[in-house]
């Protein structure tokens, strides 16, 4: 069985954690935002993104020459944990910070980095990730949105779906087919293009979610022109490049903490009731959280030390286990305290319950279904 490194936070890191926490508490007190469950999907608030951009808290690991802080992956981990634990609205810049930045730093051109990274860091520029299509979910290599070579660029036609927050994004890193599907090497012929979501030929249709809000979208491409300088990395290398992003996408604290505000309220409620029997039950939830956090931080430390080869399987495992945990929280809560879930409830625990129940089915689907992850882990474990 693989062994993950352990992390003891430094004094500076502890200090940083408290600094972020104090800032967020103050903003909550000022009414800047209302804490929510699953705020990294549902909390899209450009003004909040700009606010934390000013603090230097977007792209904090990126090079200083683009405006970053060159801080460690562990610092970013701490920052992300604090945002999620306080239910802060970080959705607008989320994917650009988590995925697009690292992608461009690894595969992008200097021109792309200079153009996009400083804007992302300011909290002004948001990216969507265009992967799924109506007929390509778990079987992602079967995508059929195609880009055809024309003079000076590519002409894109097709459709993406389930793109988080495309309706507020400026750009989308889009996985397209640049050469025809070949059954023998189905991962070949895919490329990543940066598509301007305000370009001619783009139509964005929000999809109404279980809560009645819209977080996911359909994105239609009708002869959309993408200039050559918006190709990420190499034409035909899109699958490999996309895989490199997955460890970042799968192992972060957002795979454990999406329902943390509800856990916090549950504990508060049990404390108010002086319910020690309930707290004994809830201590099992706290212990599960601690145990998962060890794994997730261990993967972050592997990424920090540049050990990207051994990261894929633990990262997939963290997502499979973590999302199952966060999904279980409303079910456990409602058996320990009396709740009545509604989205407009004035009692916090009722609102968090409603948000958690309605968002929960998505946890084990988005970013790779549990079934796909199980396949990855099983294969990895058996061949080890």
């Amino acid at each position, binding site marked *: *069985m*693989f*062994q*993950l490194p*352990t992390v*003891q*936070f430094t004094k500076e890191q*502890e200090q940083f*954690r408290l600094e972020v*926490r104090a800032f967020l508490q103050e903003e909550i007190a000022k009414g800047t935002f209302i804490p929510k469950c699953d705020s990294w999907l549902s909390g899209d608030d450009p003004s909040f993104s700009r606010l934390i951009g000013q603090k230097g808290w977007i792209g904090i690991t990126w090079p200083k020459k683009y405006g970053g802080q060159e801080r460690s992956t562990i610092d970013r981990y701490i920052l992300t*944990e604090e945002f999620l*634990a*306080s239910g802060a609205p970080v959705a607008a810049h989320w994917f650009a910070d988590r995925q697009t930045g690292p992608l461009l730093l690894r595969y992008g051109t200097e021109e792309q980095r200079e153009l996009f990274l400083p804007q992302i860091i300011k909290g002004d520029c948001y990216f969507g990730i265009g992967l799924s299509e109506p007929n390509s979910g778990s079987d992602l290599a079967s995508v059929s949105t195609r880009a055809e070579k024309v003079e000076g660029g590519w002409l894109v036609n097709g459709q993406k779906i389930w793109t988080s927050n495309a309706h507020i994004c400026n750009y989308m890193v889009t996985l397209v087919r640049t050469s025809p599907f070949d059954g023998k090497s189905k991962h070949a012929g895919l490329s990543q293009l940066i598509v301007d979501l305000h370009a001619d030929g783009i139509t964005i249709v929000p999809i109404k979610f279980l809560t009645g809000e819209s977080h996911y979208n359909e994105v239609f491409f009708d002869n959309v022109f993408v200039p050559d300088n918006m190709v990420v990395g190499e034409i035909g290398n899109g699958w490999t490049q996309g895989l490199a992003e997955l460890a970042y996408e799968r192992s972060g604290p957002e795979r454990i903490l999406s329902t*943390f505000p509800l*856990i*916090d309220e549950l*504990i*508060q409620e*049990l*404390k108010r009731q*002086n319910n*020690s*029997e309930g*707290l*004994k*039950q*809830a*201590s*099992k939830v*706290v*212990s*599960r*959280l*601690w*145990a*998962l956090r*060890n*794994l997730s931080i*261990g993967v972050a430390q592997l990424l920090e030390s540049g050990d990207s080869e051994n990261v894929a399987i*633990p990262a997939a*495992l963290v997502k*499979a*286990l973590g999302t199952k945990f966060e999904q279980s929280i409303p079910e456990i809560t409602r058996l320990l305290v009396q709740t009545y879930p509604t989205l407009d409830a004035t009692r916090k625990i009722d609102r968090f319950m409603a948000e958690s129940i309605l968002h929960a089915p998505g946890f084990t689907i988005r970013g790779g279904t549990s079934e796909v992850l*199980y*396949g990855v*882990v*099983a294969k990895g*474990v*058996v061949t*080890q």
Partner: protein
Amino acid sequence: MSEMKDMILDVVERMLKENVDKDLVDIIEQGKWASNLWGLLEENGMTMVATSEANGGAGGDLEDLLNIVRLTGKYAAPIPFSETTFANYLLEQTNLHVANGLATYMLSNTQAFVLEDGKLSGEAIHVPWARHTKHFVTLANSVDGIHLVEIDLGQAEITHYANLAGEPRDTVKFQNAIVSQVSATLSFDEIGTMTTLETAFQLASMTGAIDKINDLTVQYTKEREQFGRPIHRFQLVQQHIVNLAGETAIALAAFNNITDALLNNHQNNEVAYARIRFEEAIQAVATISHQVHAAIGTTHEHALNQYTRRLWAWRDEGANTSYWTDVVATQLLENSGDRLWDYLTDTKNTVIKL
């Protein structure tokens, strides 16, 4: 972490691999134990790891020791390694001399023994390995408080019992027996710390057993063929493999985090969380591994039961899950001002030295 860690662990794992097989583990159920293996570890200084030089120690720290205990759990080694080393660790931490030879302990019941004029009376049940060991370390009540005492088991009336795995768990009775050493009186915090360390030693053995069960099970899915192919090719079996891998990864990471925390004096309930989470891990690991091994795994003949029966026995020994959920619940109530996240991420230095 000691610089010697990797070297020490390599040496110990090699010794265990070469010397412990299914038959050797089975001798415990015939009332025997692996004295040769013990001699080998003793010769190589492994029974004195984490003991101070003043007490004749061989270097190494608590993390090294807990990792050796993990390995004895991984091989189900039929020797009182965890018991002797933990008894010695308690003695040393309370400024007493380490015992010379095999030792065991019992902490669970602070009311079991009375100490009067240097003489011990009382009875403890489920004492591990009492019949094979020489020194007994336990808590005892005197008029001025609770002490840790060391006493020669030659003076005890010992009745043989065994746990679910056939490991010796004896009843030990003393009547006005002379103690060899007595510590100063202990505070409740100090006793609580001893319990924390006891649980850490138990978690080490459990981690080893879980790791081994995972290895056995994955290996079995590669060897066993049905419907013309190895069973790991079936998706429903793969689901078992992943759930088992998840529990194993969680156990290993939890164990590494508690040794790290103990060594760095960052103790913040890690042992409690780990023990509570291990309750679920043990249940899942035992169920899944037996399901995957199917009929053969339910036989005494197959090695799987040497690990699953140990886990089923160990989980009800010492401070159990109910004890630890109570500790966490009480703390949550007492820190009523803190939010859960403050509480969970608080890593203020807590000195755990006794």
